């Protein structure tokens, strides 16, 4: 379907009335994207009877300069430059009626350093456009010229590790449970036990803000007592993600300032606060030497279904630009959605300086990050010590592994749960570095470590059979073809 341009040129282009998008200049199969163009890849599912090229052109049009009819005021502008151009459309493999549309946008269409502006265009009105049944933003290529207008992660993986003095292994965390109902004093108890037992971090849950059972100031004060006490008990830097999510920016700044004043090294926010608030907090975190954790609360409402919404890989790219330091990116083996290949793509987006095109991981473009700080992915939700070899293999070393239930639910208490996780992790790193086939020998390595660690033995016993094997709703559309070359 990638035939020639149908663009009408000259005076006829601006005759009053309605004209097909593909004839207005939004369908340009001969266009070669410039290095400075922003490129978006959409999965377009036209309504029955709508010409695919017209549907793809309409997406380009509605996400850039077009409106439903010809307007003469276009002629007052460099309109051809500002028109987004769909330059390629391919049928989606194994999905009749859907097309991957590649659309290029001139850099001048976007305000420097603003996710709000970028997203208002790319995922604005166009997602409600009637001639489409469904639309999904799958991936974006962000030109270096645009990447360089963003701050990027306030701290970054390397400096986070330097500040914490923790190298060579994943970091360990746990979300305090129950999520709701603990008083500040009881909450701090969980934090102290988990950190003293061997975790690096504990975490507020996304919906722990300031409720009748625990005012935020009370939580912050009790948590910092716990953090400092655990630090003195272990000689190791500890932290707790104090959630500063609140109703207004002023409230969030107030909470963040208080966390800072109390000596916390990290605060957290929820994705639902919005892109502008996230960027504001990232700037605040950079100014205040604070690590900024992002909980991706709400993302599954628009990332999970393949037909419509925004892929999480795009959200991950936006969040790396926006400047958070931690982002939940899936566990593969845990309780929440996460195909292994798709998840691998997210982790690469967070941690690499260059992402080569890898369709089997859902990465449609080469992406240069131009030395923007790296973003630490967080694996959280339904994982336990018995999976340590799989987690290390799938997720690598620069990741926070968060065992909430897998710490707090230990039969001999929270400290024992934390110790079990830490021992399992260190034993696995030791074995990996020794060159052992730790993925296959994982259970043996854990069993051996458990010989000198009762808490680990008990943890392995309790959770040995727990897995979450459900079919993924968001697997890549492309599978690798075996190479014929030796």
């Amino acid at each position, binding site marked *: 379907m990638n035939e020639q341009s149908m663009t009408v040129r000259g005076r006829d282009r601006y005759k009053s009335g309605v004209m097909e998008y593909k004839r207005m200049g939004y369908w340009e199969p001969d266009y070669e994207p410039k290095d400075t163009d922003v490129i978006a890849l959409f999965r377009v599912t036209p309504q029955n009877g709508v010409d695919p090229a017209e549907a793809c052109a309409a997406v380009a049009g509605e996400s850039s300069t077009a409106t439903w009819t010809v307007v003469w005021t276009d002629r007052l502008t460099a309109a051809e430059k500002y028109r987004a151009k769909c330059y390629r459309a391919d049928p989606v493999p194994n999905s009749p009626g859907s097309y991957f549309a590649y659309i290029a946008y001139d850099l001048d269409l976007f305000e420097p350093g603003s996710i709000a502006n970028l997203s208002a265009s790319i995922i604005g009105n166009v997602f409600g456009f009637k001639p489409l049944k469904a639309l999904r933003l799958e991936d974006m290529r962000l030109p270096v010229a645009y990447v360089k207008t963003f701050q990027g992660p306030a701290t970054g993986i390397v400096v986070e*590790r330097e500040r914490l003095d923790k*190298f*060579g292994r994943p970091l360990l965390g746990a979300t305090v449970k129950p999520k709701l109902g603990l008083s500040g004093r009881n909450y701090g108890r969980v934090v102290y036990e988990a950190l003293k037992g061997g975790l690096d971090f504990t975490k507020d849950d996304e919906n722990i803000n300031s409720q009748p059972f625990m005012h935020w100031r009370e939580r912050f*004060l009790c948590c910092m007592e716990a953090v400092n006490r655990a*630090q003195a008990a272990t000689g190791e830097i500890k932290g707790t993600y104090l959630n500063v999510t609140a109703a207004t920016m002023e409230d969030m700044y107030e909470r963040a300032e208080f966390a800072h004043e109390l000596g916390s090294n990290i605060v957290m926010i929820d994705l639902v606060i919005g892109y502008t608030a996230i960027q504001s907090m990232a700037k605040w975190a950079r100014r205040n030497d604070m690590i900024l954790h992002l909980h991706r609360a709400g993302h599954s409402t628009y990332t999970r279904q393949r037909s419509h919404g925004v892929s999480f890989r795009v959200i991950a790219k936006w969040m790396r630009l926006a400047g958070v330091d931690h982002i939940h990116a899936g566990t593969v083996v845990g309780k929440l959605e996460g195909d292994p290949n798709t998840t691998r793509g997210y982790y690469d987006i967070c941690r690499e300086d260059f992402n080569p095109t890898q369709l089997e991981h859902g990465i449609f473009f080469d992406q240069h990050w131009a030395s923007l700080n790296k973003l630490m992915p967080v694996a959280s939700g339904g994982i336990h010590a018995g999976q340590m070899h799989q987690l290390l293999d799938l997720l690598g070393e620069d990741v926070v592994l968060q065992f909430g239930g897998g710490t707090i639910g230990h039969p001999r208490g929270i400290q024992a749960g934390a110790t079990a996780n830490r021992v399992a992790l260190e*034993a696995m790193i030791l074995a990996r570095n020794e060159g052992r086939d730790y993925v296959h020998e994982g259970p043996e390595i854990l069993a051996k*470590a458990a010989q000198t660690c009762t808490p680990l033995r008990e943890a392995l016993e309790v959770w040995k059979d727990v897995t979450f094997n459900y079919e993924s709703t968001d697997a890549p559309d492309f599978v690798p073809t075996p190479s014929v070359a030796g």
Partner: protein
Amino acid sequence: MRITQGCFSFLPDLTDEQIQSQIQYCLKRGWAVNIEFTDDPHPRNTYWEMWGLPMFDLRDAAGIMKELADCRRVYGDRYIRICGFDSSHGWESVRISFIVNRPANEPGFDLKRQEAAGRKVRYSTHAYAADRPEGERYSS
């Protein structure tokens, strides 16, 4: 108590064979290996004393094990750690760090609290060992 800084503090103390294997892992990746020692275990004490310069061009862990043995002979009553430095672009920092020697007795830390306005507390962590002068903290 046992301070739990570094990559392997929750495991039983590493044997020389295990240490050598970890060093070999660093060398295989082209990291420079450094030996550092201290008698101030404060968690924010970043700059431990260096036992010579990082060993940039070594291929064999045996040479570093010999340096470690020498370091232990002189400073065997203190903390000694091995660090691997990765100079590749985008990292340019420590990649792994683990303790390979500890004092016989680790007295731990005192958490000092200074009560401030409201319910605020100013915390400071003080190593009991640091009550004595540098160099005399762990030797009897």
